[in-house]
């Protein structure tokens, strides 16, 4: 590579490192993300792994950028392929300007690359084996080449290694530094000299930003909102909520318990909630299915509980590491019998924090189950976000009675009929407040009752709480041109993809607007108003049955205006793919005939 003083300043770069599970792709991406972040860039990373510890194709992707981006970009600038499969699997995301660093230990680069792609081949694996006797150093060697290519200084790369590997011991650090040196040497051989990479990296002080996943943000939101009791059972992709809370909750006097199964999980959380403690569970599809009985029980017994569903590809065991939004029906309609519930849908790690605070407050106030609908990408992708504003949130206690209040009232009914349908709660231990809580139909005292008049009144009391709640449920966020005829609706990790697709469409001359619903149950007026003002609304979803669109239609949205864009292949959307789907739908005669199916390429 020749010296080029006119190198562009790094403003947006997408890098994939891919190989077999255990090859260390994630390590390379994690270190790159850390490093670029300390250089003042924002980052977003994504992982694509199989549900196993070693082997199978594994890739990690990182985007480093200035400004605001909320997803991986459409074009990969740099692919680091540690084997042939890594090239084959990821070639679709490359273009003629992409660069590939390829480990040719196993054979020449497969001929699947777009024309013009520049390839730097080197036998990382063989060099690692020959020089270091250990295959596992190949990613550290590759890191040297990648760092040089991106335009990072050798010293900066060394510092990152020291920071990352020091905690694993001096020996491991030294071996890795040696491997990094081999990488620099290799780069020199390929003509990639220090300071001659693709980009000029503007060294600026790192912005005060957090590098965090959605799951970790949920855990923190719960903690800040006064959540003090959490139960979970390990399940991909929700386990980080459990792990984060196990680390942090005890420091605040809370309990984060790994239970024997999800049945114990939700019921133990219910037991804690009965004492007036703010409680939460987190799980994914299979575990959420097991929890259904408990969910309905919270509805009937008016027990506050936050339930986090980190959705993955279903049905059944499905594809545990792949994103999907196919439990929406279960959140909105699941459980036997009729009961009130609230379903919130965050779209980015910072949103996860604020909506979890809301969810925790709402559960306590309305004494019902409140769901957070996550998806694997939102749960596990790492993003830089503005530090959470602790002054902008509050933990508001629900309607509670202390001993003195009960003394004054002279009577306590756990399920008292009230104007706002919410009955005050006295926590066990409060003198005078004896009560019965049950999933049986009950009277105001909590005693089992099948009296038909009471039954109807009690059912209405519970269901009407949601009507009261509507006014304060999190509103949707609006983006784009208010006058655009074409609208988007999409939740979860699709938030960033839709925002970026809108920019691309704008360049194609297609004006759009986007409503990111943050409450999908009950369906609020803001969604109806948005659909009303658009002539066509693309409801983008990661499921096969258009679950979100059906929920909206069920609640009165005009089906004639809704066009479904559905994806359920387990692959996260890139903005350009969404643009293509939309343009195709726009141009197809199907739309004109009023048919509503946009096929994904």
């Amino acid at each position, binding site marked *: 590579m020749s010296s080029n003083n006119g190198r562009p300043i790094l403003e947006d770069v997408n890098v994939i490192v891919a190989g077999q599970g255990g090859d260390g792709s994630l390590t390379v991406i994690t270190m790159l993300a850390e490093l670029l972040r300390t250089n003042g860039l924002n980052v977003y990373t994504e992982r694509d792994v199989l549900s196993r510890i070693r082997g199978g194709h594994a890739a990690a992707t990182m985007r480093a950028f200035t400004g605001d981006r909320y997803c991986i970009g459409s074009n990969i600038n740099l692919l680091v392929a540690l084997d042939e499969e890594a090239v084959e699997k990821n070639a679709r995301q490359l273009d003629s300007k992409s660069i590939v660093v390829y480990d040719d230990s196993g054979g020449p680069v497969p001929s699947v690359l777009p024309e013009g792609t520049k390839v730097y081949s080197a036998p990382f694996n063989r060099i690692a084996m020959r020089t270091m006797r250990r295959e596992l150093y190949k990613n550290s060697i590759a890191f040297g080449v990648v760092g040089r290519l991106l335009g990072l200084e050798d010293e900066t790369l060394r510092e990152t290694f020291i920071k990352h590997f020091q905690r694993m011991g001096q020996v491991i650090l030294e071996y890795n530094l040696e491997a990094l040196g081999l990488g620099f040497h290799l780069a020199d051989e390929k003509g990639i000299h220090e300071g001659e990479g693709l980009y000029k990296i503007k060294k600026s002080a790192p912005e005060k930003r957090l590098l965090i996943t959605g799951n970790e943000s949920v855990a923190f939101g719960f903690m800040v909102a006064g959540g003090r009791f959490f139960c979970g059972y390990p399940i991909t992709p929700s386990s980080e909520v459990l792990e984060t809370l196990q680390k942090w909750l005890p420091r605040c006097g809370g*309990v984060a318990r790994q239970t024997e199964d999800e049945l114990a999980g939700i019921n133990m959380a219910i037991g804690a909630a009965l004492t007036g403690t703010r409680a939460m569970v987190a799980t994914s599809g299979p575990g959420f299915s097991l929890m259904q009985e408990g969910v309905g029980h919270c509805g009937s017994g008016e027990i506050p509980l936050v339930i986090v569903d980190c959705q993955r590809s279903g049905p059944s065991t499905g594809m545990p590491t792949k994103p999907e939004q196919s439990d929406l029906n279960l959140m909105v309609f699941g459980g036997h019998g009729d009961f009130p519930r609230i379903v919130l849908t965050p779209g980015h790690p910072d949103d996860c924090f604020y909506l979890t605070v809301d969810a925790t407050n709402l559960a306590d106030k309305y004494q019902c189950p409140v769901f957070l609908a996550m998806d694997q990408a939102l749960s596990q992708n790492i993003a830089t976000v503005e530090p959470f504003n602790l002054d902008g949130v509050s933990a508001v206690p629900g309607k509670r009675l202390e001993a003195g209040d009960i003394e004054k009232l002279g009577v306590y009914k756990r399920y008292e009929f009230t104007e706002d349908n919410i009955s005050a709660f006295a926590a066990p231990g409060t003198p005078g407040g004896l009560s019965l809580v049950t999933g049986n139909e009950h009277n105001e005292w*909590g005693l089992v009752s099948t009296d038909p008049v009471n039954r109807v009144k009690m059912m209405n009391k519970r269901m009407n709480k949601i009507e009261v709640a509507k006014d304060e449920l999190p509103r949707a966020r609006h983006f784009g041109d208010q006058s655009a005829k074409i609208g988007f609706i999409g939740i979860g990790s699709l938030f960033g993809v839709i925002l970026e697709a809108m920019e691309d469409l704008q360049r194609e001359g297609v004006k759009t607007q986007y409503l990111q619903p943050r409450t999908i149950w009950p369906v609020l007026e803001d969604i109806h108003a948005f659909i009303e003002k658009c002539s066509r609304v693309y409801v983008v979803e990661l499921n096969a049955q258009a679950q979100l669109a059906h929920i909206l239609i069920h609640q009165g949205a005009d089906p004639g205006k809704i066009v479904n864009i559905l994806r359920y292949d387990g692959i996260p959307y890139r903005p350009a793919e969404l643009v293509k789907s939309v343009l195709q739908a726009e141009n197809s005669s199907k739309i004109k005939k009023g048919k509503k199916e946009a096929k994904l390429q």
Partner: protein
Amino acid sequence: MTMQTHIKTFAPARPIWCAGCGDFAVQGVLEKSLHKMGIPPHKLMMLAGIGCSGTIQNNLPCYGYHALHGRVLPAAIGAKLANPDLTVIAAGGDGDGYAIGAGHLVHTFKSNPSIMYIVMNNCNYGLTKGQASPTSPTGYHDNPESGMDSILLGLSFPSATFIARGFSGNPEQLERLMGAALDHTESKKGFAFLEVLSPCVTYYDTHREWRARVYNVDEEEGYDPSDRGMAFQRALQLRAEGRIPIGRIFKGEHASLESLILNKAELPPAQQKVGLDGHREQYKKFIDSYMG
């Protein structure tokens, strides 16, 4: 138990049990034991499962909770961990505890929380009209299997600390056992497991049979409840002889769950005030740790 008099709350219900049901004895003994221990109703959280026995909380002045079928133990553990100052008693039947909820029983022996668990064992599903339960003997309603013995199950856990079996037909002994169980949990020693043979007069009246078969280890000279091997051996031997051991079968020592996992420097979860102020320092530390 007198502090409630001037405040009106739910009026404890009359039991729904059939005349002669063993559960009456359990409730009577429980009320006496609570009174003796001086546990006021507002400190008592009484959780019950699904089944005939799962209505006992309605009959007592307490904070009562009717759990989902089989889930009384996790709910009780959640309550205890959230507020360890409460006296937490879980109750249920053999179907609730040994069939649909068996997994939780295993893990409660394992984790040893300071809660009492009373299983009213009548060897059938009384509330659904007498189907075979996990403790029904071979041949009952054509049951092809042998009945299980949860005493043997509990004995296999190194963390088990209190295992006893009473008989509703022997209320004096039951009262001693219940008192010892309450004492065990109130002194924070861990899980008190008390199975009570409680005959179902309607679907499987075992009263006479059990009176003839029970064998009181409390009266056996040389029986040492702290000797796990002996407890296990006697239980097996008696079973082989067609006898049912009752009494204080095992007493062990192990740290209680709440003593192991609650942060003693902080108020327990249920006693903390809701609001941001208590732990701002920790929240700031959390944010800093993600700043890189």
